[in-house]
């Protein structure tokens, strides 16, 4: 019997708002409804999942909807779980909609019991038990209680490989992730059986054989059996090795684009070599990479071995270049403070040009070499609706690129020391380098400002200047005791001569004034008698730098050489020159590049020319301390001079610097795979000599000081932070050693 609905009343609501009832109850006021429409409306309301029971009654033309809300979850308690953390379980619960405050559904509870049980089985905990109960609570709420008994884990008693003739069982089981039970294996849970790990190991076994020419290798069966007390698991793997194949012929099929002769150069194997799937895959990759350079970004090369003799096989590389691809847009993501142009100017791949895979890859390395980004990822994405256009998306994660240091100190000899310096390699995200520093104390006043624009022209011609002034009393920095005031300015330029090499040159003028003080040593006094105390020198400097380091900050691969020459040109008061050669080599030991060996070396030599026989002492090289030989005080190595006043010895440096170091870089413990930290074990060695010293100069290699230790570096927002603990190896009595050293703001 039909009737028009005058009004709708809803009863039994506690938590759910009336609005949500109306929005899912398809009946409104003034509407004609009958039994069947009412029933379907109720069914609709049920589907909202909010209610356990719905009754509809009629009072005249008023529809009374009496609902009983599904209980909501008041609390979730989990007990007995050690191997799966509670919050992982809680996440699983919340994903399935079981969260405090949410609606409770019995069906999801059972499904969850099964899911948790299955994750335990995956961990090899076969006899685990999971029971979930829901206790009703006041105000129509329910407390969920998950009672878990994880049972014990079946540990592997033996892995028995049957049918292995050419390789020993140890050799094969060593490849496996699963290991037989032993105390050290149980520490790493390696001896716990889990089905995924077994299938992973079988796959490793297959590729081990395929990489050694066993084309017909096959795993006949892998049977797992468990002891009645479910504590021990036995694995039996029966394999059929088949014959070891060698290559009888190599063929190239398909559209080779750059010609067979060019591609053959990239195939290092020849007839008679043992077939290896790994080598074939890497050859295919290098072939398609070569085609990628011609724009065939979608190229695909498959190596297909066909047995053609007793134990020989021909390998055919099927080359499908696909269509030549063009880049529509290059997009950058994540450069929230670095300007778009700073990234785009590193791109050798152009928009609207042929997509060349190695240019796209090279551009990614260039972004890494800037040192502005912790991570750089590149992704070539086809443009929907076209079959030959791609967008190249670089996503970067910015990292601090500057260092900020301010120091307030006090020392008896020079009173209050105030110092502040700001240097930023990516000045306000413009890619330009700028630094500004000032240092004021009773005896030392210095200021410097420098600015370099690495991309004055679009091809990377750089231009920069620096101005500095310093009035110092060297007492502070523990260098031989005399006063040196210096003022100067420098212009620097540089440009690339190829993808990895740059030439820089600069011209500058420096006015230096040496003043003696109470502590001045005899050598300084002699120098001042000979040369006077105030000099104006005009400098011409040049350097050649080649670097393939893969990252600007904390590199892990590649090498760098730099050769530099600074000459005080004729017309300067003191005509001298300083030349130095510096090199760095990084050898990553693993693909993840978290274990790396670094070698570094530096040689510096300075001398006078024309009517000067020596270089001025204040331009001497020094060694010791951070960035040189750790474990010895800063600048303390080399011969010393005696101050006339109190007779203590001060380092005097020298005109010949030799320095070398070896570092073994290891993953930073507990820090995961972060790229802004570095821990390494190192050996440093170095010394400065004075070739013009009065007693006949005899360079005694024994003089070279060395130290070994461990260092930790961290790129922070305030600047690169570094600690090192070093043990001097051959220090003499008079050396000033320093086991713990710390530096802020100096990357090396």
């Amino acid at each position: 019997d039909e009737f028009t609905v005058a009004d709708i009343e809803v009863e039994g609501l506690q938590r759910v708002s009336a609005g949500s009832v109306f929005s899912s109850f398809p009946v409104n006021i003034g509407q004609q409804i009958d039994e069947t429409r009412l029933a379907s409306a109720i069914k609709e309301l049920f589907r909202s999942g909010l209610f356990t029971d719905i009754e509809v009654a009629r009072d005249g033309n008023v529809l009374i909807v009496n609902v009983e809300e599904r209980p909501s979850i008041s609390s979730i308690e989990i007990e007995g779980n050690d191997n799966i953390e509670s919050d992982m379980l809680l996440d699983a619960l919340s994903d399935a909609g079981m969260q405090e405050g949410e609606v409770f559904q019995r069906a999801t509870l059972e499904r969850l019991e099964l899911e948790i049980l299955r994750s335990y089985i995956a961990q090899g905990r076969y006899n685990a038990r999971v029971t979930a109960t829901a206790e009703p609570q006041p105000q129509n709420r329910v407390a969920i209680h998950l009672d878990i008994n994880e049972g014990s884990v079946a540990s592997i008693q033996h892995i028995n490989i049957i049918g292995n003739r050419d390789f020993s069982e140890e050799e094969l089981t060593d490849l496996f992730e699963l290991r037989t039970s032993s105390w050290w294996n149980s520490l790493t849970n390696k001896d716990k059986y889990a089905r995924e790990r077994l299938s992973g190991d079988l796959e490793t076994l297959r590729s081990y054989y395929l990489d050694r020419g066993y084309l017909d290798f096959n795993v006949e069966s892998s049977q797992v059996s468990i002891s009645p007390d479910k504590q021990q698991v036995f694995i039996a793997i029966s394999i059929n090795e088949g014959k070891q194949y060698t290559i009888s012929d190599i063929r190239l099929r398909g559209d080779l684009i750059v010609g067979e002769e060019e591609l053959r150069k990239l195939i290092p194997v020849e007839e008679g070599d043992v077939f290896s799937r790994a080598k074939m895959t890497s050859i295919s990759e290098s072939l398609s990479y070569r085609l990628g350079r011609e724009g065939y970004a979608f190229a695909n090369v498959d190596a297909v071995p066909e047995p053609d003799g007793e134990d020989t096989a021909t390998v055919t590389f099927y080359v499908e270049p696909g269509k030549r691809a063009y880049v529509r847009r290059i997009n950058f993501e994540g450069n929230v403070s670095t300007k778009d142009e700073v990234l785009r100017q590193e791109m050798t791949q152009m928009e609207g040009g042929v997509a060349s895979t190695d240019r796209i890859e090279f551009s990614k390395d260039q972004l890494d070499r800037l040192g502005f980004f912790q991570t750089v990822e590149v992704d070539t994405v086809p443009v929907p609706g076209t079959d030959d256009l791609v967008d190249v998306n670089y996503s970067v994660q910015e990292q601090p690129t500057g260092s900020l240091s301010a120091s307030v100190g006090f020392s008896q000899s020079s009173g209050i020391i105030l110092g502040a310096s700001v240097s930023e390699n990516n000045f306000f995200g413009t890619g330009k380098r700028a630094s500004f520093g000032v240092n004021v104390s009773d005896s030392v006043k210095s200021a410097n400002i420098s600015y370099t624009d690495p991309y004055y022209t679009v091809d990377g011609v750089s231009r920069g200047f620096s101005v500095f002034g310093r009035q110092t009393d060297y007492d502070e920095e523990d260098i031989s005791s005399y006063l040196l005031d210096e003022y100067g300015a420098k212009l620097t330029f540089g440009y690339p001569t190829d993808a990895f090499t740059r030439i820089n040159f600069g011209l500058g003028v420096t006015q230096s004034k040496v003043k003696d003080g109470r502590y001045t040593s005899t050598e300084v006094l002699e120098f001042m008698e000979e040369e006077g105390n105030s000099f104006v020198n005009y400098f011409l400097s040049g350097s050649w730098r080649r670097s393939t380091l893969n990252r600007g900050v904390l590199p892990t691969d590649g090498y760098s050489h730099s050769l530099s020459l600074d000459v005080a040109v004729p017309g300067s008061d003191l005509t001298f020159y300083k030349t130095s050669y510096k090199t760095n080599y990084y050898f990553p030991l693993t693909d993840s590049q978290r274990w790396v060996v670094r070698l570094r070396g530096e040689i510096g030599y300075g001398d006078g020319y024309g009517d000067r026989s020596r270089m001025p002492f204040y331009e001497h090289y020094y060694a010791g301390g951070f960035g040189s030989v750790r474990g010895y005080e800063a600048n303390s190595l080399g011969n010393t001079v005696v101050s006339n006043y109190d007779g203590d010895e001060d380092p005097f440096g020298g005109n010949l610097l030799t320095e070398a170091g070896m570092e073994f870089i290891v993953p930073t413990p507990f820090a995961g795979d972060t790229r802004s930290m570095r821990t390494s074990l190192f050996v440093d060695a170095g010394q400065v000599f004075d070739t013009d010293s009065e007693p006949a100069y005899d360079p005694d290699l024994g003089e070279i000081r060395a130290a070994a230790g461990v260092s930790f570096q961290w790129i922070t927002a305030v600047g690169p932070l570094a600690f090192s603990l070093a043990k001097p190896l051959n220090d003499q009595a008079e050396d000033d050693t320093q086991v713990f050293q710390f530096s802020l703001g100096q990357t090396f």
Partner: protein
Amino acid sequence: CASQQQDEPEVLAEKTYYENAREAMNSGNFNEAEENLDALETYYPFGRYAEQAQLDLIYARYQNMDLEGSRAAADRFMRLNPQSDHLDYALYMRGLASYNIDLGLAARYFPIDPSARNPGEQLQAFRDFTQLLNRFPNSDYALDARQRMIAIRNRMAELELHAARYYIKREAYLAANNRARYVVENYPSSPAVEEALILLADTFRYLELPEGADSAIATLRKNFPHSEVFDADGNYQSDRLQRQDRSLLNVVTFGLMGED
């Protein structure tokens, strides 16, 4: 094993938390406000003040510069109160939080042109405001939301121009042409269109596609008659593509000597 009885902090009445929060909000002490609102959430999740508390939490966190927290609070509010009539406020606040999340410290105090950098979370802000305008066209936050959307879109258009100008410097004129055309096609009402049309015209001319150039100039003349590229008698003069070729001397002496 005995069920551990942690010492529950002494729980206040629902009303007191709410009043403390309200007072703190009015006096601008948003930290205290946030604490009270959090307490209200945990102890009285379904109390009378639940909805209002969740709403105030969004604002308190925004004022405390905890933009991530403010966004999360807005999401939570929208999930728990699908039918509330303050939804437009929550959506607006969510957009506002995303709008300011990436403004670094420097950008606030130094003259940095944000448009040359990636918009970052402002794209999310754009999506939030679009949702707001679609669902609540006459909400009283709609006007401000629309203004911010225009600002975001203009900024994205400016970014395209930065890329186009770089490609001109790089002498990759086809890339510059495509970037300029992208602006004209996707951001027709942004101020960047004027410069885009000029670049479009110059690059079409360079690529010897006169029709493309003429149509760009025609559109320019129609929309920006007083553009500085039109000389006195209306002819189109532009020097965007002039190649820079400074002499060595000029570069070394910072432009003092040698011809520019």
